[in-house]
């Protein structure tokens, strides 16, 4: 290998400056040519519909500008908007707690068998689609579901107090069950690539594991945690199947209302206004991440 490169270096003529510049220009054009098809697909089938949604939300029947669709959305669906924020916010919080606990144990756990078992265990739901998670929870959390039978069997609740959890709780459980492994995977990966000398030093000085986790490990992987949580937050905002299957009646999530406005009433205007409101919510989530990214860039 080294001989052939030496040989090539010896033979290759020194490149004149103009040729280098030409090469850079060719490379730039080649780059554009290679990237254009992919960008076109994203522009046509993603950006354009997004713009149409924003336009549709403000357009009156006669083509003029109006805020009536937003007024109607707020009038009809304020409860559902609050419900959506509550569900997605609570789920994000629980996902953060679960992910920190599991990833923390995977990084700092001292029982190799416990760590190996947890690593094998936690990610089963990772690629299970939301629609299947919805169906799974529909059976598990029902009044006659396995959860209630186990709770009754172990004596934790009375048979008569068994109730269906297929309401807001069911949605939260389905969301956390499905999304927590994803955030944990990202977080555990980031923690594994950290320099371990600080951790070892703190452990040797007698710091308990929870202090090492919150004082040393977590601050270094905050960015990764935020990315995972923001992506989960945005994903959960636009899941339709889980709320439709677990809790379709009012109050419910905005996605269900959007589907109802379209399938039943063909009312695209109010549907688009609701969509824009959920985009705003996602933007709030993304702003959290951006603020962190800016802080990090300034600190670096």
């Amino acid at each position: 290998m080294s001989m052939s490169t030496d040989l090539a270096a010896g033979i290759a003529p020194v490149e004149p400056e103009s040729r280098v510049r030409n090469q850079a220009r060719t490379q730039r054009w080649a780059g554009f040519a290679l990237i254009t098809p992919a960008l076109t697909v994203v522009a046509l089938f993603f950006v354009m519909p997004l713009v149409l949604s924003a336009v549709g939300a403000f357009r009156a029947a006669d083509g003029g500008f109006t805020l009536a669709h937003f007024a109607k959305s707020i009038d009809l669906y304020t409860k559902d908007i609050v419900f959506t924020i509550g569900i997605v916010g609570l789920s994000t919080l629980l996902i953060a707690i679960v992910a920190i606990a599991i990833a923390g144990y995977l990084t700092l756990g001292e029982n190799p068998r416990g760590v190996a078992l947890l690593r094998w265990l936690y990610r089963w739901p990772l690629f299970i689609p939301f629609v299947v998670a919805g169906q799974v929870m529909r059976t598990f959390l029902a009044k006659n579901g396995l959860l209630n039978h186990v709770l009754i069997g172990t004596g934790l609740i009375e048979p008569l107090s068994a109730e269906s959890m297929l309401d807001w709780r069911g949605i939260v459980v389905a969301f956390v069950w499905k999304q927590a492994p994803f955030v944990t995977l990202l977080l555990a990966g980031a923690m594994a690539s950290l320099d371990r000398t600080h951790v070892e030093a703190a452990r040797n000085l007698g710091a308990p594991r929870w202090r090492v986790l919150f004082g040393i490990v977590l601050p270094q992987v905050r960015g990764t945690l935020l990315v995972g949580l923001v992506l989960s937050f945005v994903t959960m905002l636009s899941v339709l199947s889980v709320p439709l299957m677990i809790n379709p009646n009012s109050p419910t999530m905005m996605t269900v209302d959007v589907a109802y406005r379209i399938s039943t009433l063909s009312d695209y205007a109010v549907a688009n206004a609701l969509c824009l409101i959920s985009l705003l919510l996602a933007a709030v989530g993304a702003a959290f991440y951006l603020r962190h990214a800016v802080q990090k860039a300034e600190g670096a």
Partner: protein
Amino acid sequence: MTSAVQTGTPWLRHVPGAFTRALLLALLAFVIFGPLLNLLLWAFAEKWYFPSKLPLEYGFTFWRRVFAPRGNAIGSLGTSVWIALLTVVFSLAVAIPAGYALARLRLPWRGAILLAFLLPQAVPNLPVYVNIAQVFYQIGLAGTVTGVVLVHASHGLVLAVWIASAAFAAVDGSLEEAARNMGASPWTCFRTVTLPLAAPGLMASAIFVFLESLDEFTGTYFVGVPDVTTLPLLMFNASMGGNYQIASITALLLLVPSIGFMLVVERFLKSDVLAMVGR
């Protein structure tokens, strides 16, 4: 246990810790597998009424119904796999050149382009599906396989570009240089050096796109109606119709590739590729 021996503490001190650990792991195992077990029970239940804890009869009646030659499930499975394959071909055909350009060529506005490919993951998809469905309805693509493939591909493409770009970036550039210095044309160099070395990462992105398409629900729900029924849609309809056995069997069919991929994902997506994502 080894630390107990080393420090000379009696092994009894570790018993409460070991007990808590076992209890927590068992609890997590129940939370993860309990719902899946419940699904499995429903898939084989012939009769299951309210007060009884377990199904009254087990059997394969519903399996025969699902897999009947004239049954909907086989048709939906075929549609789903066909759509997913087309989505993979289309996505990779545009994502591989884009990923290569992002990883290897000097591009102006590279950051902005990467951001554009992040957009579909970072924005709620419902507005997109709703409006693309309306556009497709006007141009006759609603309810067609082509329409559904385009919607799936516009989403899968993004993942594919990111993973492909990371896979190309992880290829050692000196190997390509050596090939070029020995007289290989850019195309020969790409075909015989770069592509084979990036293949595992590209394979991973193909599987990701395939699974995403196979599992996709919301986009198909709006764009596919009324003629394209994929497996997730069939499962949803069965579940909403109260037929838990059919829904559970269909859900199991969808679970097999998801869990299979979860178990092997790290073999395809090595940490050196993962470290390059977003660079």
